[in-house]
Every structure is written in structure tokens, then in C-alpha cells.
């Protein structure tokens, strides 16, 4: 049984699952049940240093750059509607391969074209993030955002970070207006 976190909570990945090396970060949400334009959600990852900034654009993993140069983080592709059970988007992380100067892996989700479609996270149902050990299929932890999401168009779902030589995960649930662009600027991407 995976440990379920609430907003702000954190967990030691190394202690909870000592065998954890190859990790899947699963992001899920419900497809829209009402009529109108689909919710097209995109997952992105910022690999950042101690100062919360990327080393360069190559540390920003998103739908146009699916894999980090070091090979430690890989985005497996885009689901356009949230249709289907299970994870809607999956990011693979090989913890041992993450460069030492990268201290935090920030997992964010943004709504594509949110302003034009007049959409926000408050309208998306059952958004969740979960971490799965790819080798054992064991779900290590999960965080359901449903009530923490509101009128924002970009959300940091969670972050995987180094702490005293171990990996930890924090359920962030922090929303931002301004979509992917605002998030990218905040994490030091030059646009």
C-alpha cells in the first residue's frame, strides 16, 4: 500500500523503497465529462540546481524535448485528452544517472491554450501524481491534488529532491497563473 501524501507532505524515497532505482512518475487526471473543448494537459520537468534554476535549456524536459542529455529523465509522450484509466502521462527517472549538481527534479503540469479555452485546474477532476518503482511495479507514494487545484493554469504537482544523500519527494500542489511560460522563466529558462 503506497503512502498517500497531502499538500506539503514529503517522504524519503530511499527509506520507503531502498531498491528504487528506475522510477516512473505517473500523472493522471479525468477526461472532461461535460461538453466543450478537451482539457489538454502537458507534463514538464525542470532539473534544477541548488538555486532552483536550470543549468541550461537542456534541463527543461517537455513535449518538444522529451529526453535529458544525461539520459536520466525521459518524458514518454503526450496524451491529449486524459482518456483511459491509469497514468495519462509518464516520466521515467533513473535516479543514479541524475548529475550530482542537479538537486531537484520539479514535475509540473500545464493546461495547453488555457487562456484561450478559458480553462483552469479547478475544472480538472481527480488530478494525481504517483511514483512507481519500474523494476518491481511497486507504487511508492501518491498525491491526489483534486481539492488543491483551483483557478491556476500551471501547477507544480511535486518535486523529487536530494536531502542528506538520499532522495525525497514532496507533494507541492502549488498553482501558478501564466501557464508554462511563467513556470519556465521562474526556473531560469531563457525565452
Amino acid at each position, binding site marked *: 500500500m503506497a503512502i498517500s501524501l497531502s499538500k506539503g507532505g514529503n517522504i524519503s524515497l530511499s527509506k520507503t523503497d531502498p531498491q528504487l532505482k528506475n522510477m516512473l512518475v505517473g500523472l493522471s487526471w479525468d477526461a*472532461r*465529462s*461535460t*461538453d*466543450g*473543448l478537451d482539457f489538454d494537459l502537458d507534463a514538464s520537468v525542470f532539473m534544477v540546481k541548488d538555486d532552483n534554476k536550470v543549468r541550461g535549456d537542456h534541463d527543461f524536459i517537455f513535449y518538444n524535448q522529451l529526453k535529458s542529455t544525461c539520459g536520466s529523465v525521459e518524458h514518454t509522450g503526450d496524451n491529449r485528452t486524459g482518456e483511459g484509466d491509469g497514468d495519462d502521462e509518464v516520466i521515467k527517472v533513473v535516479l543514479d544517472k541524475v548529475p550530482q549538481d542537479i538537486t531537484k527534479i520539479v514535475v509540473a503540469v500545464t493546461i495547453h491554450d488555457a487562456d484561450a479555452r*478559458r*480553462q*483552469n*485546474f*479547478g*475544472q480538472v477532476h481527480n488530478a494525481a501524481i504517483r511514483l512507481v518503482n519500474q523494476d518491481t511495479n511497486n507504487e511508492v507514494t501518491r498525491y491526489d491534488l483534486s*481539492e488543491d*487545484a*483551483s*483557478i491556476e493554469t500551471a501547477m507544480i504537482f511535486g518535486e523529487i529532491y536530494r536531502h542528506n544523500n538520499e532522495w525525497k519527494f514532496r507533494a507541492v500542489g502549488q498553482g501558478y497563473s501564466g501557464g508554462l511560460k511563467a513556470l519556465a522563466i521562474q526556473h531560469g529558462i531563457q525565452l
Partner: protein
Amino acid sequence: MQIRKGQRLPLAQLLPENLPDGSFQIQVGMTGLTTEVDFSCFGVDGDQKLADDRYMTFFNQPKTPCGSVSISLMNNRINGFYCTLSSLPASIDRLVITATIDGSETMSRVQSGFLRLVAADRPVAEFAFEGKDFHNEKALILGEFYRKDGAWRFCATGQGFDGGLPALVRHFGGEVADELPTDVAPARLSLEKKVAEAAPQLVDLAKKASISLEKKRLTDVVARVGLVLDASGSMTGQYRRGRVQEVVNRILPLAVHFDDDGELDVWAFSAKPLALPAATLSNYADYIDTVNGGWRKWRMLSYNNEPEVIKEVLAHYKDTAMPVFIIFISDGGVDQNAKIKKLLTEASAQLIFWQFVGIGGRNYGILEKLDTMSGRTVDNCGFFALDDLDSLSEQELYDRLLQELPSWFAEAKSKGIIN
């Protein structure tokens, strides 16, 4: 406080503390449409389904059984709802405020609209929306009040369905018979009106009957209605406890609605059948205890002889030009299976539909097999059994009673039995 579309908040953040008995008002309004907007409040369960029709609060059903939600009117139009969340049953997980329109317009034509929370006569929060938020919707979920971790929250939903009210009803797990009639108000109001004038105690039942009639699209049907009451010895307790009188009360609104003269033809039967004077809105109240000297003097309470009463009913309606809807109450112990089967098979080309209802008994014999009985021109019978009359809510009872009638009408029309 302004609430934006998609925003989710604890209700305690919106309402002032120390509200008298926790009640507040929801006000709704929309401008820019030429069609009239119908506002409703759906009280749904944890699966987001309308498990109990009585928790749909709208013009024709102005409050929930618990009284926690009721409509507020201005110029005889709904302008909102009064809410006391603390008295809602725990099974109601969410109150969904909706707006629906008919016709060719869509919600994109809305100039401005609002859902406003008013506490102690003062507006405390407002969710404003406009047509740009929508496309082709004809039904909108404006906002939702819901339980979460022991507290109520509010979400400004602002999403909807192109298919209007039927799509909304399906969303909440309801069934929509083909297509809802576009204007049923006159028929259902007339039933309520007839009952309200002559027998105000039956208004509540009449409303429920109206809702079922509307759902089954039976509002325009004219038919004779007959009630056949088992009066065999085993029924004594049910007569004594007033349960049979309850049956008359519940069936009478259907007769008032369907029948041109508003009369319910009644038979009792035991070893022999007994035709009783018709039940009407003026004599129904003590019907069982007073008609023909009261049930104790009917010389019934012997064994149950269904074939004889079926023959008498058939003879009574032999020359009718109008379809006939018979509700036949039995408490079981049915053993003349071959005779009953022959009579009903031969009668399947007649204008009569037989709805058998088992109450508080067992061994219903052939009655349980009526639906699949072969050799009939049309399926002219239905059956269901209840442990007790109150095993079903009044609303469910009407739904069940009227369940098979629409398909019988359709089949009888296609076979030329009904013109």
C-alpha cells in the same frame, strides 16, 4: 467576494460565521437569452447520481423531503434556492445548481449571468459568467456545493452539455424516455390543480404521480383506470391496518390523471368478485371503511379466486373504446394458474393492460411468469412484488406502476388494437 470559474473554496470562507441555523440563499440569473431559463438543484449521492428523484428541486417539485432545499420565486419564476445544509441527509453528497434552456438558442448567447450567495439578506459571494465561457451548451452546471473531509465546499463549475436537460439527467444517472416532451406543464399542472381543489391531502402524491407520468411520456394519454383488490382472508391484517386504504390513496391520482371522468373503478375479490362504487376525489378518504358498509361487510375474506374477478373486469370493459389500465393487487397464494393464463392470453387482443402488484405475500404462481407468457397478441401484463407498500418510496412506486405501460401502448398501436 468574486469567485472565478473553476475556483474551489471552503464554504465557511464564503459565509459569515454564526448564520442563524446555517441557512443561506443561492440566487441565480441570466440575461441575453430570449428563451426562459429553467433553474434546478440536483441533490446527488457520492457517485454523483440522482439516486432519489425527490432531491431534484425545481418549479414542479419546490422542495426536498427534508426541506433543506427549496425554491425561491420572484414574479413566479425561480430566482434561486434556500439552503440549510445541516439538515440534508448524509446520503446527499452534493448540491448541483443547474440552468437549462429549450429551443435553438445556446448558452453562448448569454450576456451576463451570476450565481450569488446571500446570507442574512446580504450578498457575500458571486460567481459571474458570460456567453464567452460557453459554446453550444443548452444545460449548465453553474456551481456545486459538496462535502469534503467533513466540511462543505463550493466550486464555480461553469460547464455544461449541448444536449440540454436530457443530457444533464443522463449525467446524473437518470433515464430519459426517448426525448422529454417539450411542454408538459399544462398536463401535470392540471392534475395537481384538480387534486388541489378537491382533495388537498393528495397533492403531494399527485405531484409524484405527475413526475412519473412525465418521465414515461404518458401525460397526454387518456385511459380508464381500474383497481382490483385482493380481499381474501390472508389480507385481513392489511385491511385492518389501513394498508389497503393507502393503496387506494396512491392509485387515485393516476385515475384522476388518465380518466376522463376522474373515477377509479374498484373491485374486491375473494371466492367471488364484488364490484364496488367508483372511488373519486370526494369519497376516497374513508373509502375502504365506508363503501358498501365498509370492508368487514363485503362478505369477502375467504379464499382467492382470481379467474372470476378477471372475467368480471373483462366483461365490464368489453365495449370500451378507450384503453384500460388495471392495477391488480394480490397477496399471493395464487394456484389457478391455467385458468388465469388462458383468460389473460385470450384478453391480449383487448384494450386492457394488467399491472399485477404483489404486496406482503408469496407464491404468486403464474403472475410471476406473465411477462414471458407466450401465445399473446401483445404483452398485456406486468408484475412486481413488494414486501410492504412502503418498501418503495411513493415516487418509485409510480415509476414501477407505469414501467411497462408505454411499451404496451406502442405495441398495441402497432398491432392496431389502439387506433
